[in-house]
């Protein structure tokens, strides 16, 4: 407006002021077009990070966990800056599969990976990632029994609750790579070219263990301390926390920590009930969460909670993590022969979902979920009430095909 006044000193009428205004094209309203100016490269463009999308509920930035079914159960995906804790099943078959799905999703989306393990070399873990499913051949492998809620016999058209038949079936096909959440074929390995072009950092604890001779006393177990330092170094050097302003495109760091809490990390919460360093793991989780909240990263941790002797520690760990999913496989238990569970390999328990910038969270109504590992795919279903078992105290599961 000051510019208009100086230009229009000679003219007194508003018309000339308007004329000069339009001629000089100076207004206080600037149109924010898609200019290629480098002033604000990422201001309103959070969605432009590959593999993320804002949540429909509160706008939180989400990444996919690698299993679209699990994404749906967690309210759209895993929020950036949070921890997904997976309580391992007894023989660590399915939890390691979920771990690999998470990492594979990172590779497909071009995220940077950080893999930490005390048991296997991270390079070996990356070689075993499942291959993505991107073509339509997948559709004919799908099962056809997408049951609706009310029918005991799935082939009878519903007569009473006929409105449910008009509901659209769940999306169960593969998605192209530009969308959120991909499907993976557990029987095939990811092609080596994809792994080699991806950026990843590995932390294999036995290698670091041998290099240090003096262990200074510290409240954190040595292994956890080294791991935290490593994560912090990667976040700082690669600029995930905004410290080195990234001129290039922003990216997400996916952290995967395997078997945290097992004795291989040097922590003895799995060995004894009254351990010396019982706060080590909880401190680790606290510091890790602080690191994650201040950076563009998401973390998956698998933990053998069935081995932890002190139940109080498990409660503390659950509180310190954001999303907690427990897996319980039927191998070796009496449920393996139970006719209710004959189609499934185990149960999934969603133990906790975080409340991020919210007062309430999105708890799904369905509490009882089962999973099964088919020949190629990992599906999470709510098991059909084919047989009404009101007298048995087992959990009732409803069918809900989402994979």
């Amino acid at each position, binding site marked *: 407006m000051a510019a208009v006044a100086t230009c229009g000193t000679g003219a007194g009428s508003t018309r000339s002021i308007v004329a000069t205004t339009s001629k000089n094209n100076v207004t206080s309203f600037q149109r924010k077009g898609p200019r290629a100016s480098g002033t604000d490269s990422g201001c309103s463009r959070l969605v432009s990070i590959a593999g993320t999308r804002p949540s429909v509920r509160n706008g939180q930035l989400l990444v996919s966990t690698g299993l679209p079914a699990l994404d749906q159960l967690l309210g759209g995906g895993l929020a950036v800056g949070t921890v997904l804790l997976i309580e391992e099943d007894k023989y660590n078959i399915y939890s*390691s599969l979920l771990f690999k799905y998470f990492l594979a999703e990172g590779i497909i989306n071009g995220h940077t990976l950080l893999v930490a393990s005390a048991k296997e070399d991270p390079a070996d873990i990356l070689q075993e990632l499942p291959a993505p499913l991107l073509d339509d051949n997948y559709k004919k492998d799908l099962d056809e029994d997408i049951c609706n809620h009310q029918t005991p016999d799935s082939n009878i058209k519903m007569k009473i609750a006929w409105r449910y038949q008009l509901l659209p079936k769940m999306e169960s096909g593969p998605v192209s790579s530009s969308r959120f959440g991909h499907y993976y074929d557990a029987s095939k390995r990811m092609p080596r070219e994809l792994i080699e072009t991806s950026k990843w950092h590995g932390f294999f604890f036995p290698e670091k263990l041998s290099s240090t001779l003096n262990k200074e006393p510290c409240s954190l177990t040595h292994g956890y301390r080294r791991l935290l330092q490593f994560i912090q170094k990667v976040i700082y050097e690669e600029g995930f926390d905004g410290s080195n302003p990234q001129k290039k495109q922003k990216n997400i760091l996916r952290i995967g920590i395997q078997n945290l809490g097992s004795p291989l990390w040097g922590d*003895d919460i799995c060995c004894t009930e009254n351990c010396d360093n019982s706060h080590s793991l909880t401190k680790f989780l606290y510091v890790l969460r602080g690191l994650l909240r201040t950076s563009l990263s998401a973390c998956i941790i698998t933990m053998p909670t069935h081995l932890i002797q002190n139940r109080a520690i498990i409660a503390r760990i659950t509180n310190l993590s954001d999303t907690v999913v427990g897996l319980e496989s039927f191998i070796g238990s009496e449920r393996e022969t139970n006719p209710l569970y004959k189609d499934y390999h185990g149960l999934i328990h969603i133990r906790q979902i975080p409340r991020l910038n919210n007062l309430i969270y999105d708890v799904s109504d369905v509490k009882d979920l089962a999973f099964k590992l088919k020949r190629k795919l990992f599906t999470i279903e709510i098991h059909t009430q084919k047989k009404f078992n009101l007298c048995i105290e087992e959990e009732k599961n409803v069918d809900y095909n989402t994979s």
Partner: protein
Amino acid sequence: MESVLALGGLVLLRDSVEWEGRSLLKALVKKSALCGEQVHILGCEVSEDEFREGFDSGINGRLIYHDLFRDPLSWSRTGEALPGGPLGALQAMCRRTDPGPFTIALDSLSWLLLHLPCTAVCQALCALSHQHSRPGGSCPAEPVRVLGLLHEELHGPGPLGALSSLAQTEVTLSGALGQASAHILSRRPRQRPAHQTQWFSILPDFSLDLQGGPPLESQPHPDPHTPPVDPTARVTFNLHLSKKEKEAKDSLTLPFQFSSEKQQALLRPRPGQATSHIFYEPDAYDDLDQEDPDDDLDV
């Protein structure tokens, strides 16, 4: 029993007071030695002479014995004792770079767990089992096999669980009527664990004799396995319809279904039938004035 040795990695032999496992350990050691492998033995619980008893000279020559029994705390200072104590001995074994198949027998893991922190034992065992993937470049074909004897009753659920999660194969010894049996649980990576029960006996020269099982009448199975639970058995409503009932159900017209007969019935007035009547007795408080429904309100 071949699968026990074939898989490699950590093999846990869990024994108890009734069914001792040292003879099975010696039998497996003998089998490995006969296959031409290098066998290292870390002896902690029994003396070297007692361990070597029963083996012939050929096998005894192939066994490399590390003795921790005579002087576990290195008091003698004559240099005979192993440097570094038990942990040092384990770590020394980790650093071996001899090519070829390799078997390590730990007699016993329980002794190690009682003298060393559990985490150190677990880390050493993991390093031992994964020794073949150390930087040498290629992964060799022969695995390193670690046979560990564990006395179940000496430990709580914590260490037992921790070691089970590390083990590739777990052999739990039990038996019936003088016949020993081994329940073998083998965990191949990324596959479901496989269970197998094998009856066996150990001959005096420590060779394994695999057997079918004890005579049938001594089998302690009192009755056949109960049939799987039928969830529909004790339900208070009828889940199964007979054919007639199904037909009746299918032919029932539901109230919201608007069929043509219904439409005709509604459209066409029925002259013959009396129209329906409503009988109404007005109450004392009823308001019969149609225009002002709120007349009776006391406002």
